[in-house]
C-alpha cells in the first residue's frame, strides 16, 4: 500500500516537472506573443498542480497532512486564467493591429 503510494507520488512529481519544462520550452520556441501565451499559462499550471498534489499526498503519508498546498493550488488555479487574460488584453492594447477584423454582417436568413 505504502509502496504504491510512493510510486504514485513519484509519478506525479515527474509528470509535473515534465509539464513545467514543456511550458517553459514552448515560451522559448514559439514565435508570436499570442502563441507564446499558450505554453506556460496552461502547462505550468498543470506542472505546479502535479507537484503540489504530490506534496499533499506525501505529507499525508508522513502522518502530517497540511492544508497549505491546497491553498496554493486553489490560488494558482483561480489566478492563472485571470492573469493570462490580462496579459492578452495588454498585448492587444499595445498592438491594435493584432485584433482580428470584425466579421462581415450576416445576410438575413431566407
Amino acid at each position, binding site marked *: 500500500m505504502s509502496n504504491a503510494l510512493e510510486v504514485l507520488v513519484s509519478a506525479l512529481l515527474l509528470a509535473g516537472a515534465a509539464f513545467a519544462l514543456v511550458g517553459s520550452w514552448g515560451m522559448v520556441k514559439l514565435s508570436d506573443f499570442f502563441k507564446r501565451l499558450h505554453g506556460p499559462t496552461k502547462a505550468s499550471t498543470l506542472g505546479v498542480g502535479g507537484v*503540489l498534489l504530490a506534496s499533499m499526498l506525501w505529507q499525508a503519508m508522513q502522518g502530517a497532512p497540511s492544508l497549505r498546498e491546497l491553498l496554493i493550488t486553489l490560488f494558482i488555479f483561480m489566478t492563472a486564467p485571470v492573469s493570462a487574460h490580462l496579459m492578452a488584453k495588454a498585448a492587444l492594447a499595445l498592438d491594435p493591429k493584432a485584433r482580428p477584423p470584425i466579421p462581415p454582417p450576416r445576410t438575413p436568413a431566407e
Partner: protein
Amino acid sequence: MIQTCISLAIGAFAVAMALNLYCLLRGPGVTDRILALDTMYVNTIALLVLVGLRESSTIYFEAAVIIAMLGFVGTVVLSKFVIRRDIIE
C-alpha cells in the same frame, strides 16, 4: 525513490526557470517580459515546495503561499499599467 524523483524534479524546474530567465532578457515586447515573469513566479512556487519536501521543513510552504499571492498582484499591476499607463485611478 522519492528522493531521486525530487532531485530530478528540482533539476527540471531549474532548467525551466533558466529558460524563463532567457525569455525575460530576450522578450521583444513588454508583454513577453511580463509573461516570462509570471511563469517564473509559478515555477518558483513549485521549486520552493520541492525544496520543502526534500528538507522536510514547513517554512518553505509559507514562503510559497506569499509568493503565490504577491506574484498574481504583480502580474495584474504590470498588465494594468501597460493597458492604461496608470495603476490607481
